[in-house]
């Protein structure tokens, strides 16, 4: 090959130009380029992937508020889906959405408990004392 810098003729497999010392072989792609992570069907070392909040999404759906928990699960699926195709930025955005819906569900559940406690206290709903 010919050196792009000085034009000297070099072997095709030469690492650097014998004339000017310029690097001839391909350089490693800069960090941040979207390369798909080898995640399919793999047991990952902990802490190497984007959090999908799936556990919280399940808890939110079952224990707190179903209408808010379902979007959380949908976004949790989206996180892993985007990681599978290498879209880490998209995965991070989906992760933030999943987290938000988990908090919404938790908040609704907490508010519902608060309302129930209030209703018990003002006697509208039979609470601890009447439930025997």
């Amino acid at each position: 090959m010919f050196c792009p810098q000085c034009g000297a003729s070099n072997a095709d497999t030469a690492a650097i130009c014998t004339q000017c010392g310029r690097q001839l072989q391909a350089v490693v792609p800069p960090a941040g380029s979207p390369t798909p992570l080898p995640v399919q069907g793999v047991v990952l070392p902990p802490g190497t992937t984007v959090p999908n909040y799936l556990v919280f999404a399940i808890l939110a759906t079952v224990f707190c508020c179903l209408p808010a928990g379902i979007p959380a699960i949908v976004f949790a699926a989206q996180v892993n889906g985007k990681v599978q195709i290498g879209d880490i930025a998209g995965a991070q955005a989906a992760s933030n959405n999943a987290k938000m819906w988990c908090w919404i569900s938790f908040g609704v559940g907490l508010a519902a408990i608060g309302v129930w406690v209030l209703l018990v206290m003002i006697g509208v709903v039979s609470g601890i004392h009447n439930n025997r």
Partner: protein
Amino acid sequence: METFLTPSIRRRDLVAVLFLAAGFGVVLLRLFDPATSGVFPPCPLHYLTGLYCPGCGSLRAMHQLLHGNLREAWALNPMSVMLLPFVVYGLTSEALLQLRGCGLPHFFLPAVWIRALGVAIVLFGIVRNIPVHPFDLLAPGVLLPL
């Protein structure tokens, strides 16, 4: 690592508080049966509409599990019983992640699996309300083995 914690709240404190709250809840659940005691708030959806959401019976199921009654727990909410080990493992992993910066190793779930789980949860919530055999077996407390 993504976190919702502000700098002023130490992770260890938050995990400790949550662990204590969970522990208190477990003790309460062991002592009182949600089926008969008014200590636990009822589900608003069921209270207002009489419908069974996917989580209906899960608290009673946990109470039965705390007393070693797997069959009764399964009858109350089979899905919760099946999901419980994964949820416990996941929560432990989250706690360890906040405490030592590194959670437990986990299998990467393909997105389609997670979506399937979501669909299964919703279907479970719909089907268990159908008062037709055999769907009514999924209602809390009905699927009791002979």
